[in-house]
Every structure is written in C-alpha cells, then in structure tokens.
C-alpha cells in the first residue's frame, strides 16, 4: 500500500503522460456510455413526450412506473441482462455476454427510464404553455410531439447529460455483463474497483481523476447550454 501522496503523484503522471492502458479504458467507457445515452434518448425522449401530451386510462400508473424505474439498481439490471444473454438465456445465441455490446444494452436499460421520466416533466411543463395555441392551430399529435421536443431541446440536452452521468458512473451492471476483461470490457468504474482491491492505487486514482473531470465537464456543458438558451430566450 503506497502513501496517499505518492499515489496521487503517480496517478497524475499516468494521466499527463498519456498512459496507453489508462486511455484505452477511458475511451471504452466513453464509447459504451455515449452509445447507451444515444439509445436512451432515441427511446426515452419520444416516450417522455407521448406521456406528457397523452391522456389515457392507466396514465398515472405508467408515470409511477417510469418514475420508479429511475431508481433501478444497476446490479439488478446487470443480473437481468446477464440472465437473458447467458448461454442458457433466451438471447444466448447472440453471443453478446462479456462484450461491450452487452454493457451498452445494460446501461441503455438503466438510463432510458431516467431520460423518459425527466423529459416527460420538461415537456409537460412546456406543453402546459403551448397546448391552447397548438389546439388553435389544429396540429396533429405527431406535430405537437415533434414541436415540443424541438422547443425543449436545450432542457433535453441537460436531461441527456444527466443520463450520461448516471451511465458512466455506474459499476454494478457493466461488471456483471461485461466481466471487467482487460483490453475488452474494462471500463473506468470496474477498473477502479479492481485496482483498489488489488492495492494498485495510482491507476485507480488516475481513473478517478478522469471521472471527476468528466463529471465537472458534464456539469459545465449543461450550464453552458442553459446560459446559451437563456441568452436567446430559447430556455
């Protein structure tokens, strides 16, 4: 076990020297989580918009369900995806277990409810403002949903960033379905867990630093988006 100060120094050296292993892990993390965020947005944004503008029997139950799914435990998602992708599972023939694709599937399942629930709230607020005007213009449901998603775009970028933040920081689901295999499915969070348990603090700390910088960057980007939108009165 190294001294904490030494570990920090070594970690900074790893980051600043562009250590190949470190950046391989960082890039895989970004690829998996950004792809999962894109999938979650493709599924979650229209779902949130439809929930926001539709009135149907069982809507309240659907809202409770989507909100509850925001709190899905990553390990439970990992377990369910594992059971489906394992050899004996219904999707075992695809051979996806312990691949980045499996990790993308797990993270997509984890954050789609987050994107749907948050976008539903954003779009419902906007719909409250626009609904009478839209009814006066006799727009179709499809036109209303498209217009609301576009006009809420700046707020929805923040929603997407929240989903990405959740995906890139979770460890349980990707550990179970990815297996933390070196040079194949090792991402930042699983690597931090492994290196810490091995006592290799510099790599764990270096990855932790990158994660922290990413978190800061995400928040800075969200803030920048909000300020830009406010400047043009698009918020």
């Amino acid at each position, binding site marked *: 076990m190294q001294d904490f100060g030494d570990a920090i120094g070594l970690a900074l050296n790893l980051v600043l020297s562009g250590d190949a292993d470190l950046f391989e892990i960082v890039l895989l993390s970004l690829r998996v989580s950004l792809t999962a965020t894109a999938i979650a947005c493709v599924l979650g944004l229209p779902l949130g918009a439809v929930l926001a503008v539709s009135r149907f029997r069982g809507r309240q139950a659907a809202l409770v369900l989507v909100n509850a799914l925001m709190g899905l435990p990553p390990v439970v998602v990992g377990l369910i995806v594992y059971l489906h992708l394992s050899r004996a599972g219904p999707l075992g023939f695809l051979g996806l277990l312990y691949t980045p694709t499996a990790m993308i599937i797990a993270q997509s399942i984890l954050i789609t409810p987050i994107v749907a629930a948050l976008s539903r709230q954003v779009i419902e607020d906007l719909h409250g403002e626009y609904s009478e005007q839209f009814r006066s213009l006799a727009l179709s449901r499809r036109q209303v949903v498209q217009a609301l998603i576009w006009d809420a775009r700046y707020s929805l970028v923040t929603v997407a960033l929240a989903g990405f933040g959740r995906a890139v920081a979770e460890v349980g689901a990707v550990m179970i379905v990815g297996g933390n295999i070196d040079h194949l499915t090792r991402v930042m969070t699983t690597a931090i867990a492994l290196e810490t348990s091995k006592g290799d603090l510099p790599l764990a700390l270096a990855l932790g630093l990158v994660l922290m910088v990413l978190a800061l960057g995400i928040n800075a980007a969200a803030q920048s988006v909000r300020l830009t*939108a406010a400047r043009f009165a*698009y918020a």
Partner: protein
Amino acid sequence: MPDTLLPVMPPADPPAPARSALMPLRVRDLTLQMRGQPLLDIPALDLDCAGTTVIMGANGAGKSLLLRLLHGLIAPSSGTIAWGGAAMSPAIARRQALVFQKPVLLRRSVAANLDFVLRARRAGTAEARDALLARVGLTHKASQPARLLSGGEQQRLALARALATRPDILFLDEPTASLDPAAVQSFEGIVSDIADEGTSVIFVTHDVGQARRMAREVVFLHQGRITEHSAAPRFFAAPQSRAARAYLAGQLPL
C-alpha cells in the same frame, strides 16, 4: 366667367368587404358552466356580417370564453354552434385562427415560427413566409429569436402566424391590451386590411376607442349574457341596454 359648378355628390359608403365562406354563424341555446357556476347563457346569436365584429364587455363578462367556444377550444355545456350551416367541427376549426392576448411564440427565430405553421399546413414556402413577414413589417427581424421581440412585434408575429393558416375567420382576444399606442395603431391597420380582404374578424376588446375604430357590428356581453347586438354606429350613438350605456359612460355596469 363663373366657375363651372360640379354637382356635389355625397361621399359613397366604402364598399363592404366580401363575406367569409364560413358565415353565417348561428348560436342557439348556448350555455357554459364550470364547477357548477353558470358563466355564459346565450339563447341566440346570429352573425352574418363581413368585416370586423367586436365583442365588448367588462372584465369577467365572458368575452374570451365566448371566443373559445366559437373556435372550439372549449365545449359548451349545452346548445349548438353552426358555421355556414354546419355544426362546429375540427374541420371548421382548421379554417379559423386565434390570436391570444399574450402571444405564445415558439422558442425559435421569427422566421422559424412562421415556417412551423406553414409546414404544418403544407403551405410552407420561403416566398409565403417572406410575404407574411413583409405584411406585418418584420422582414428585418426574420432571423432574431422571437421571444426577444418587443411586445408589439411579438403580437404582429402572432398575427402573421394566424394568417399563415389562411383563415376564413380570425379571432382576436384582446391582442393589443398591453401594447403602446403606436403598436396598437400598427396592429389595427393590419387587421383592417385583413378584414377588407374578406376574412371575417371577431375582435374581443374592452377598449371603447378601439371598438369605435374597428367595429362594423358590436356584441355587448354583460355577466355572461348578450345584452345588445347591433351595428356599430347605432351601438355607440344610442346604446339600448343599461349595462352598455353605463359601460360607454365609463361606469361599472351593474
């Protein structure tokens, strides 16, 4: 040599604008209640005029509610509304447009606000948009965010957006209530031109001066009931109902 005297002819009345295809309007036994409270009770209302009909009345008289009923935004508790002999329907509502008191503009540029409606109505050409912008004097603001326009400009953009639907009936719900006199004059000029071109305008206002300038007919509402419906000159010269007389005298009708 005496000057040649030309016969003095009385000034001809301006030609009446063409009547909208959706006219006449027939309202029968119309009532509206909300949470058990009666808000409107209109046994009969017939509108068959071209040009601008002004609906007047004090705050809370039910003017905006009547407008929303006529446009199909809210359903009556009982009674019927028929336009051009056909019962109110979504197809009829598509041939009408409403400009609200507070314009609800999309979070986009001025031009994009118009493009949105033109595309939705499959009439979306750049030429159509540019013509609408020119008509309301906003060509030079086309690329600006719509919500950064002044109040008068926002209301003119809302009017242009309503015109993009090529309405037979144009409803205006106190659109100039918060505008300065110059903006009001500009807005009224555009509306007058629209009415002259054959769009029937139904204009809600509680501004007596504006009603005098704009109205060919006046419908006066008091506490959810129509107490007077007459040609504008007659209404302003000799109002028949006590409520209208009090209102025109600047008193609160009781």
